[in-house]
């Protein structure tokens, strides 16, 4: 990859979230906790969800990983907390589609906000797993918490 590709991958927004992650830490109120691992590199996330009345009240997490995986957890927090579970799941779907689109999917800023910065990641198959680590953990935890049965 070239220097331009590198800059497309490491957008300022991503590096900002990496340096100052939102919502980081494990908080006490939660209905489900999951632990996910990226088998290739060993990156890990422990993630808790707190859902009440069909609304994502909190997502708290402890994670070890690269800039992409850390930033994506931070962006996840921003995007889903406070949203009804159903809407949060739709955002999840949209982010998944963006990541699996091999760089061909045009992100919708209305829905994905800061997460549109991850569009560049989709071109690097090896890094897609990093970006999805906490998102997959969140979905898993939310389903376990009974917040969604889809």
């Amino acid at each position, binding site marked *: 990859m070239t220097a331009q590709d*590198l800059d497309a991958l490491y957008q300022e927004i991503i590096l900002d979230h990496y340096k100052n992650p939102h919502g980081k830490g494990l908080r006490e109120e939660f209905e489900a906790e999951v632990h996910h691992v990226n088998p290739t*590199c*060993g990156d890990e996330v422990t993630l808790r969800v707190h859902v009440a009345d069909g609304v994502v009240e909190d997502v708290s997490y402890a994670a070890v990983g690269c800039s992409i995986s850390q930033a994506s957890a931070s962006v996840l927090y921003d995007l889903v907390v406070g949203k009804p579970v159903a809407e949060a799941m739709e955002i999840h779907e949209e982010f998944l589609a963006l990541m699996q689109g091999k760089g061909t999917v045009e992100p919708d800023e209305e829905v994905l906000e800061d997460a549109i910065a991850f569009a560049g990641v989709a071109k690097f198959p090896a890094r897609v797993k990093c970006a999805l680590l906490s998102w997959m953990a969140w979905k898993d935890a939310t389903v376990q918490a009974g917040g969604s049965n889809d």
Partner: protein
Amino acid sequence: MTTSSGLRLPGLLPELEVVRKDFPILERVLAGGQPLVYLDSANTSQKPQVVIDAMVDHLERHNANIARAMHQLGAESTAAFEEARDKVARFLNARSRNEVIFTKNATEALNLLARTIELGPGDNVVITEMEHHSNIVSWQLACERSGAELRWFGLTDDGQLDLSNADQLVDDNTKVVAFTWVSNMLGTINPVADLAARAKAAGAVSVIDASQAAPQLVVDVQAVVCDFLVFTGHKVCGPTGIGVLWGREELLNELPPFHGGGEMIETVTMARSTYAKAPHRFEAGTPPIVEAVGLGAAVEYLGHLGLDAVHAHEQAITGYALEGLATVPGLTVLGPTDATQRGGAISFELDGVHPHDIAQVLDSRGVAVRAGHHCAKPAHARYGVQSSTRMSSYLYTTPGEIDALVEALEYTRSYFKLGS
């Protein structure tokens, strides 16, 4: 540019530029016009033209199934396959060609042993904390199946095996002592002859994982006096799809069969079968024929260069790399830092940047390294490290490529805005 360093380190392979010409991929230009700086050889080595040509010649002119075919192509293919066995036997200084079994890779060779060496409750298997997952999980599964106990040598702070409790670990109930010759993460070279002798004294069999040793050291199974030894083709300039299990002939013939199928039998009826002796007993089905031909050409190539010369080259480059890495602020090498005491894989941490991110920035400069746990999670855990970046050189690596790595690491630091 990366290969034109004026530096002339003592110990480098003579005519390194000529040797590099043997490897077509080294001329590869990457995205953005970057020349390839391949420092991931402990993961897999590149292939010289002679290996590729031997495979192509086989496929285009001699391809046939072996042993079973009586026609001219069959005879040629069988001869090529069995000649590869002879070459590997010479490479290992095996007493007999029957001691060389072709497997799919080192992992299959280790699992073959873990599936066929008889274990039961009360028995134990001793491994080490620096093993590759292939030499851990295979024995974990064997112990789960059999009720045997899994034990392991720990590691000292400076990356060596902790042998202080060796007498308690290896006892009368030990059936297997399995250990790596050279660590793929720490680079540590283990005292394999001593460990094998310790196994023997306890009445256990020794299993040496030579996956990282075979590419860069003289491996002489008679000098080491071990029972079993494995290595993998793709790390010694050979193709994927082939590995080697070497074992003492009488031990091999005592093991039960592994897979059932063609070529491993003596006779078959619906009710029962009898089995051939080693090596055929363990080579059920059509073996990796063209891969054996490639591997034979590869070990012959290494033999022509001379393993001593390859080893000297590796040491020279490793020493130069350790020096270069020491100049990078915030960089910590995991494992021994004396080049004469270690292999050519160097794992390190860089304060403030995750290995994935390092590898990514390095890649944008054409420098190929590995980031992650390198299939050695327990060794990482031992040192409290989640993952690391690993550079690994080989016989075609130049000092200039090490310079490019060090520069790219400096660039990584500035890219992630780390102060100096």
